[in-house]
C-alpha cells in the first residue's frame, strides 16, 4: 500500500529534481547563448548568404521581365528567327534598364555564358535613345502639354485603360525610386511616349470617345512614322539575329539556376540539358582533383615527418620534451606570411637550397632544381606550415601510451620492430587519425601560401574562388565552387567529430 502522502512527496521530489535539472540546463544554455548568437550573426549567416549566390539568378528576369516572359513559350532552334514583337518587348525592357544602367549588368552577367553579350547590351542601351522616341514625345506633348509633367502620368497610371503604359510607367518609376532619382520634377522619359502611343493606337480600334486623350492624340499618332524595332536593333548589332543569343537569355531567365554548379563541374547549360565543355575550357575538375591530390600528399608528408618527432617527444622526460616542443611551436606561432616568404627565399632557382646543392656539387649550376612556382613548392611550404598540427595531436596521444606495453612485448620475445608494429603503433592510431584529418581539413582550404609559391600548377581551388570574387567578379561561380569545397570540408569535419571528438583538439 502506498500512501497518498508518499506519492505526493515522491512526486514533489521528482519535480524538484526535474526543476533543478531544467534550471541547470537553462543556465548552461544561457551561458552559451551570447556566443552562439554572435557566431551565428558574424559567421554562419554570412557564409550561408554567400552560398546562396551560387543558385541565385534573379537579375535577368528582373531587368528583362517582358522579354523573358515572351521567350518562355518560344522554341528556339537554329532556324528560329526572333519575331518583331520580341524586339518591342526588348526595347521597353532595355529602355527602363538603361535609365539606371542595369542593362550592362545583365550584359556582363550573360557574357559569362556567351561571349559578346556584354557589348551587345552596352551598345544597344546606347542606341535605343536614337530610335526616334523623341519625335513621339514632341508630337504628343505638342497636343497635350500636360504630358510633360509627372503628375499627369500618375493620373494616367491610375486609370485602367492603358494597361501596358501603366505597367511600364510603374516599372520605370520603381527603378528611379530605387536609385533615388525620382521626384515630382522628374521628366517622363521619351520611350514612355512610344509606349503610350502604342497603347492608344491598339485601343483605338474599340471606340471609347470618353477620353480626350484619344481624340487629340490618335490623329497625330497615325501620322508618326512607325518605329521598326527589329531593323533598328539589327542595325545596332547583327548579333540580335543570332538564335544563340536569345537561347542564352532564355536559358538564364529562371530566378534560380544550376548553371554555376554545372560550370564548376566543367559542364554548361545547353538547350537539351547539361553538356560537357570543350576540352580547352575544362578547368575545375582538374583543379579540384589537384587540390585533393596535394592535400593528401601534404597530409602524408606531415605524417611521415610528424610521427617520428612526436614519438621522440613522447618518450623524452617531460622537462626536455617541453623544451623540444618549443621548437615545434615556434614555427607555428610565426606569421604565416613570414614563413611563406622564407620558403620563397629558400626554394627559388637562385635560392639558398639550390645554392647549397650546387656548392656541394650534388647538381651542376645549369640543372638547378625547380622547387617553386609549382606543386613541389606548395607541398614543401605547406607541409612545413601544417606539420605542428600533426605533431601536437600525435604527441598528446602517444604521451598516454605506457612504455610497459612495449617492454612486455619485448620480454615476450618480440623484436623491437614487431613490438612497435603490433603493440605501439595500433595504440597511436587515434593520434594519426586526429592529426591527419586536421591537417587535411586545413590544407584543402588553403589560400595564401599556394597563391605566393604555387605558380600555375600548385594552386588550390581556394585561389580560383578568390579570383572569381575579387577579379573576374563572377560571384555566382565563386560561390558555387565555395559550396562544393565547404561540403567536402564539413563532411570531413563530421568524420573528425565522430572519430576524435571536436573537444579533443589539442593546442599547445
Amino acid at each position, binding site marked *: 500500500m502506498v500512501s497518498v502522502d508518499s506519492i505526493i512527496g515522491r512526486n514533489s521530489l521528482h519535480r524538484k529534481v526535474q526543476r533543478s535539472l531544467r534550471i541547470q540546463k537553462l543556465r548552461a544554455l544561457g551561458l552559451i547563448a551570447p556566443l552562439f548568437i554572435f557566431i551565428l550573426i558574424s559567421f554562419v549567416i554570412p557564409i550561408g548568404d554567400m552560398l546562396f549566390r551560387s543558385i541565385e539568378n534573379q537579375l535577368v528576369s528582373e531587368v528583362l521581365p517582358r522579354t523573358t516572359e515572351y521567350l518562355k513559350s518560344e522554341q528556339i532552334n537554329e532556324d528560329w528567327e526572333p519575331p518583331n514583337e520580341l524586339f518591342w518587348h526588348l526595347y521597353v525592357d532595355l529602355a527602363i534598364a538603361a535609365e539606371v544602367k542595369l542593362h550592362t549588368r545583365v550584359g556582363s552577367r550573360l557574357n559569362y555564358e556567351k561571349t559578346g553579350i*556584354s557589348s551587345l547590351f552596352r551598345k544597344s542601351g546606347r542606341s535605343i535613345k536614337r530610335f526616334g522616341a523623341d519625335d513621339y514625345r514632341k508630337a504628343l506633348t505638342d497636343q497635350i502639354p500636360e504630358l510633360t509633367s509627372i503628375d499627369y502620368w500618375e493620373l494616367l497610371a491610375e486609370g485602367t485603360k492603358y494597361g501596358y503604359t501603366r505597367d511600364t510607367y510603374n516599372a520605370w518609376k520603381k527603378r528611379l525610386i530605387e536609385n533615388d532619382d525620382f521626384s515630382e520634377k522628374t521628366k517622363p522619359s521619351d520611350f514612355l511616349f512610344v509606349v503610350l502611343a502604342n497603347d492608344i493606337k491598339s485601343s483605338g480600334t474599340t471606340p471609347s470617345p470618353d477620353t480626350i486623350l484619344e481624340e487629340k492624340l490618335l490623329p497625330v499618332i497615325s501620322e508618326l512614322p512607325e518605329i521598326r524595332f527589329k531593323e533598328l536593333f539589327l542595325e545596332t548589332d547583327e548579333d540580335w539575329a543570332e538564335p544563340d543569343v536569345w537561347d542564352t537569355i532564355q536559358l538564364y531567365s529562371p530566378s534560380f539556376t544550376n548553371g554555376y554548379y554545372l560550370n564548376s563541374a566543367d559542364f554548361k547549360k545547353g538547350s537539351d540539358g547539361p553538356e560537357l565543355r570543350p576540352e580547352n575550357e575544362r578547368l575545375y575538375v582538374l*583543379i579540384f582533383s589537384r587540390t585533393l591530390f596535394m592535400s593528401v600528399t601534404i597530409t602524408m608528408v606531415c605524417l611521415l615527418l610528424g610521427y617520428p618527432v612526436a614519438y621522440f617527444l613522447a618518450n623524452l622526460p617531460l622537462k626536455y620534451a617541453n623544451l623540444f616542443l618549443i621548437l615545434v611551436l615556434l614555427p607555428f606561432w610565426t606569421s604565416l606570411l613570414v614563413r611563406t616568404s622564407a620558403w620563397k627565399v629558400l626554394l*627559388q632557382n*637562385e635560392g639558398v637550397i639550390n645554392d647549397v646543392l650546387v656548392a656541394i656539387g650534388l647538381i651542376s649550376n645549369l640543372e638547378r632544381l625547380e622547387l617553386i612556382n609549382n606543386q613541389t613548392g606548395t607541398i614543401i611550404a605547406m607541409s612545413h606550415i601544417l606539420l605542428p598540427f600533426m605533431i601536437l595531436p600525435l604527441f598528446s596521444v602517444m604521451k598516454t601510451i605506457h612504455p610497459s606495453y612495449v617492454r612486455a612485448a619485448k620480454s615476450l620475445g618480440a623484436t623491437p620492430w614487431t613490438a612497435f608494429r603490433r603493440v605501439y603503433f595500433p595504440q597511436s592510431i587515434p593520434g594519426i587519425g586526429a592529426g591527419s584529418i586536421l591537417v587535411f581539413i586545413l590544407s584543402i582550404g588553403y589560400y595564401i601560401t599556394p597563391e605566393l609559391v604555387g605558380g600555375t600548377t600548385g594552386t588550390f581551388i581556394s585561389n*580560383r574562388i578568390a579570383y572569381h570574387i575579387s577579379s573576374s567578379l563572377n560571384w555566382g561561380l565563386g560561390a558555387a565552387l565555395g559550396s562544393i569545397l565547404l561540403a567536402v570540408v564539413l563532411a570531413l569535419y563530421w568524420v573528425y567529430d565522430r572519430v576524435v571528438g571536436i573537444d579533443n583538439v589539442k593546442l599547445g
Partner: protein
Amino acid sequence: MKLTKLSTLVLGCIIIANSSQAIDLTVVSWGGAYSKSQINAYHNPFMELNPDVNIIHDESSYEAVAKLRAMREAGNLTWDLVDAVPSDAIRLCDEGLAMEVDVDEILEPAPDGTPASEDFGASLVSECFIPQIVYSTTLGFRTDVESWNGNEPDDVCDVFDLESFPGKRSLEKRPINNLEWALLCDGVAKEDIYDVLETEEGQNRALAKLDTIKDEVIWWSAGADTPQWLADGEVVFGSTYNGRFFALIEEAKQPVKILWDAQVFEYDGWIIPTGLPEDRLAAVLDLVRFATDTQRLADQAKYISYGPARTSSNALVGEHATLGIDMAPHMPGHPDNAYNVFYFNYDWWADYRDDLDAKFQAWLAN
C-alpha cells in the same frame, strides 16, 4: 576622472567643430612608387593650397570594381576618387558606378587654350575616364647572361626564341598582352590581331605559340614580381610596366635593359564614383581639375617614368626629382622608344575577357 571626461568632451567638440569645415577625401590608387608620385605631384600641393581638405590614401585599385559594387550594395560610399585602368573604368561606367563627365567642362584647357578633350585626345576611352598617364607593358632582359654569347634581344619575338636566348622568362598571368604578342610573333599583322583572335582557330594558334615556351615561363601577377626575379636572376627575360623597369635599372642599378619593341600602350586615370554628396563632390572636382592640369601631369613624371596623358604636358617633362636624370628619354612615348607600339583594344577585351580568361587559365593549368 572627471577632468579626463571633460577634456575628452572638449576635445570631441573641437574635432567636431573642425570637421564641419575640413573635408576628408579618400583617394584610391595602386600603391608603391606610383602612389608616391601622385602624392608628391598632386595631393601634397593641393592640400597646401586647400588646407581644409585632407586626403586619405587607399591602395585598393586592384579591387576597385568589386569594392565599389559592394559599397553600392551597402549604400555606403566611402571612396571619393579612384585611380583605374580603362578596362575597369569602362566596366564601372557600364554599371553606373562611375560618373560620366564632360572633360571640357571639368578640366582645365591647355595653357594655349586647346580644350581638354583635344589635349587628351585618344586617351579618353570612356565617358567616365579622366586620363592621367600613358604607360606601357613591355619586356626587359638581363644584360649579363653568359649563354647568350653577347647577343641582346632586339625584337619582341626573341622572347619566343629559346635557342638564341635560353633561360627563364616571366609573363603576366592573364591572356591580355600575351596572346597579342604570340600572334604577332606567329606572323599575324598588327592590325589583324584582334580579328584573328576572335576565332577559335586564332585563339588556339596564339596558345600554341605560347606552348613553345610554356615550360620556361614563370607567370607573374603582381607588378613587383618581374623586377624581383630579374634582380635575383630567377628569370632572364620578362614583362612588366615600364616604370618598374626604370626603378630597377636607374634606382636599383641592376644589369637590365628595356626592350621597347611592341610595347603595349595603356592609359591610367581617375574615375569619380557616382553618388557622392555635394560637398565631397565639389572638393573632388577641385582636386581633379588641379591634378590633371598641364603642369601637374608633367610634374608627376619627375617621380616615375610614366608619360603624361596630355599632349601639352610633354614639353614640360623635366628631370627626375632625386636622381637628376632627364626623364623624357625614359617615357614610353618618346620617339626613340615608341618606334613600334601596340595599342590595346579595350572594347574588344571587355567582350572577350571572360571567355579567353577561362581558356587561358585552363591552358595554364594543364
